[in-house]
């Protein structure tokens, strides 16, 4: 009498191989999905109460980032402009535009406009804009070509791996302080030397940039 069918040996071999391989594939798949643009919410344009265009205000008119994001050099938060900042110009220009009705209502009723957040870090991450700017990390390094965005979107994945890429070796991302807000600035061909020079000049110590408490405090 034969207990196992003739193919049983093959079946058990395949099963054993699968048992060895599947966990790795599953882990790889899980990692790929978690870091995919779908999960990181990259390149999604969100509806906003007012369809504010950085393309028009930055690319077209040439306003400096700091005209609206006033606390970016001094604080953790870059600063979202109060309605008064919008009305500095729009009390005189486009005063009857339907598109700007929420802005006028906001000023009249003294209720801030409820923008929908585009860059959302987990609550256990501490991020400070001011130190990045002081150490020569430009706006476009993380936020991309904002001056071409009709509606603001997140360009970087904002995953921990992405943060660490730079914190392990910030040299490729460094630029002179005076170019931080220049959206048209390009990395020079000798960025390797420049990066080393700026690392020294701005007192950056990569050996401490990956300490847990730098971002989790």
């Amino acid at each position, binding site marked *: 009498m034969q207990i196992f069918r003739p193919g049983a040996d093959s079946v058990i071999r395949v099963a054993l191989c699968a048992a060895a391989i599947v966990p790795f594939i599953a882990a790889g798949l899980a990692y790929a999905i978690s870091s995919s643009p779908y999960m990181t919410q990259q390149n999604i344009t969100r509806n906003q109460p007012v369809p504010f265009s950085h393309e028009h205000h930055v690319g077209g*008119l040439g306003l400096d980032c700091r005209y609206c994001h*006033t606390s970016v050099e001094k604080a953790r938060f870059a600063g979202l402009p109060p309605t008064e900042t919008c009305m500095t110009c729009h009390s005189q220009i486009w005063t009857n535009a339907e598109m700007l009705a929420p802005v006028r209502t906001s000023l009249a009723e003294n*209720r*801030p406009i409820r923008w929908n957040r585009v860059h959302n870090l*987990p609550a256990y991450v501490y991020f400070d804009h001011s130190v990045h700017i002081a150490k020569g990390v430009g706006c476009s390094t993380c936020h991309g070509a904002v001056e071409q965005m009709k509606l603001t979107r997140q360009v970087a994945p904002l995953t921990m791996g992405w943060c660490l890429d730079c914190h392990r070796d910030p040299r490729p991302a460094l630029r002179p302080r005076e170019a931080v807000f220049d959206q048209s600035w390009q990395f020079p061909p000798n960025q390797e030397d420049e990066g080393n020079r700026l690392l020294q000049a701005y007192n950056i110590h990569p050996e401490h940039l990956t300490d847990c408490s730098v971002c989790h405090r």
Partner: protein
Amino acid sequence: MKVIAVTIIALLLGGCADQSMRQQKRYGTFGAADLWPDGSSARPIPRGTVAQTDAAWQAASTPPPAVTAALLQRGRERYNIYCSPCHGLDGKADGMIVERGFPKPPSYHTDRLRAAPARYFFDVITKGYGVMYPYAARVTPEDRWAIVAYVRALQMSQQARLADVPEAREKLP
């Protein structure tokens, strides 16, 4: 045995959809809060509040600091950010926003504004003037003085005579 297995599975599943660490129940900067009538978690400072640093803040607005190269550099940077959209990079009031229809402010290169005291410019930045909104919330007192110094430099630049900079004679064609 069965109980242990069920417990372990239950514990593992519990970790799946828990976002409580990612999105904690606290307000982010300028976050929405339905608790208050204006819907913002950022609360306005109560009327009559005097901050501990207020005296230092006020002191920075009087008297004007000494004019140094660093102050002028800072002034140029701040002027280009906050003032140039209307007043133009050269102070002739031909900024981009004016080109788009904003009422044209006076040029700095008029007799009236050349004669105006530095304090006048400082006060206009602080309180606004005509259709110009106040910039007190956006530009610190120190930066306002820096901007005033740079406006003076702009005024001089349009009135400069060769006698003011004799060493420039050789560089001129």
